[in-house]
């Protein structure tokens, strides 16, 4: 059953990854990417990392990919121009692909030759062991606390930087001040008058 689920998820990840590259429409590409993320989360579930799986879906599928989709949907893309750039960048792309393949071969090779297969094989949690979340939390906030805090700080700086870059003060904007509106009483805004016939009121 687990083997079947693994091959299902893995083959969908690979297929949707390939389709993400080959599909002509960028919006379709993003949607295939989302499918790949989703099935990667399924793979995480299979090795017993349910917290990572949930985070993958929440962060990547739920937030990052939505923003991707948001941006790509609004892009005005000229397909002919994209095709023209393909041949120009082909050598660079092939080089990158080659480097990646060699890296993967080296990685798997050392993993095999060092006999790390048994040591890192997925094991089910023993009965009564603390859950995934507790173990991760205990590690993150004790051993890796400085790295964790540093990562948070980098993200904060990036966020502030992005806000500063896009912030501009525009003149002539009438901002809504909710507190003012709530504090406004009928006496400030209305006036009772009894004009004589034919006189009218001045405004």
């Amino acid at each position, binding site marked *: 059953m687990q083997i079947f689920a693994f091959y299902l998820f893995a083959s969908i990840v690979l297929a949707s990854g390939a389709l993400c590259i080959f599909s002509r429409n960028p919006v379709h590409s993003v949607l295939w990417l989302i499918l790949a993320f989703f099935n990667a989360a399924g793979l995480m579930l299979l090795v017993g990392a349910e*917290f990572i799986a949930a985070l993958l879906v929440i962060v990547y599928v*739920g*937030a990052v990919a939505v923003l991707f*989709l948001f941006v790509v*949907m609004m892009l005005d893309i000229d397909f002919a121009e994209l095709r023209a750039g393909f041949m120009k960048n082909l050598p660079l792309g092939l080089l990158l692909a080659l480097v990646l393949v060699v890296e993967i071969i080296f990685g798997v090779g050392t993993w095999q030759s060092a006999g790390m297969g048994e040591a890192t094989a997925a094991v089910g949690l023993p009965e009564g062991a603390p859950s995934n979340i507790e173990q991760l939390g205990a590690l993150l906030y004790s051993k890796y606390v400085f790295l964790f805090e540093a990562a948070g700080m980098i993200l904060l700086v990036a966020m502030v930087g992005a806000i500063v870059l896009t912030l501009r003060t525009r003149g002539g904007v009438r901002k*809504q001040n*909710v507190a003012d509106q709530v504090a406004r009483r009928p006496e400030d805004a209305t006036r009772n008058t009894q004009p004589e016939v034919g006189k009218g009121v001045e405004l």
Partner: protein
Amino acid sequence: MTEFLQSTFLGAELGWFVATLALILLIALPLMLAVAMIIYVDRKVWAAMALRRGPNVVGPFGLLQSFADGLKVFLQETIIPSSANKGLFLLAPIITFTVALLAWAVIPFGDGMVLANINIGLLYILAISSLGVYGVVIAGWASNSKYPFFSAMRAAAQMISYEVSIGFILISVVLFAGTFNLSDIVLSQEGHIFGLVNAYGLNPLLFPMAVVFLIASMAETARHPFDLTEAESELVAGYQTEYSSMSFALFWLGEYANILLMCALNAILFWGGWLPPLDVDWIPWFDIPGIVWLFGKMFFFFFIFSWVMATVPRYRYDQLMRLGWKIFLPLSLLWVFLVSGYVMIDKFGLPL
């Protein structure tokens, strides 16, 4: 049921499969019925507040109105605009509907009455509810028309904005309960206040979060007064503009299933889920099945949803963003800070 089916000729694996399938149907089919009836309730409440009668023709008191509507859309022709992206256009309502059903897997209806009692239940809910936006966004883009597209962009921004503060609110509940498992969260509320009241919501520290969560759940389901995705005065019918027949009905069902889910979450996280309100034995209300209490609480929250829909005018888009980012986000962040401080002091005492 799982053990029983596993002990029959089906064997361990196939028995589990059949039992789970049966349990899924046992949740999904009554849910569809509940959605049909809750649409009727919604219209009745809305009508009563406007001094109208509401649906009263089909069946006794108009009770069968939703089924008549369902039959009507079922018999209509599915129209696909010629310039639409056909595959995605048909996929979008299916996504909305499926995602709305998925989250119910971890909702505990009573003590042990839960399909998947996983220990990351709340994270699962967050993950699934963050998927809900795709149905709307894909529908808006695939329709290839202006109003749905505007609606899709609004939906994406709105759901992301409110998910952030919903996440923080859930964290403060999790800090109190010490678990992500929904059943354990309900159980930890038993006798929470002076050993008497079964609710986090009446805890002075969590009450503001209960209110914020109720409002944020309205925004998250794009319900009044935050239904900018289908603001009919601006966007015709929003992302549903180009949809007809069953594809429209799937949006409709998914939307209400999501609203019911949010009502259930309000009840489970803050108001004691399947537990009776007070933890006392001299009233024989522990004899009432827990599911009745849960449904009663869900119904109460749905009434609030309808009430708000009938009375509160729609927010403007910038007001919506202001509420999400400038009020709810700082407030819920502050509350995570307060709650975690309280939990630390409660557990380890004051540092002297």
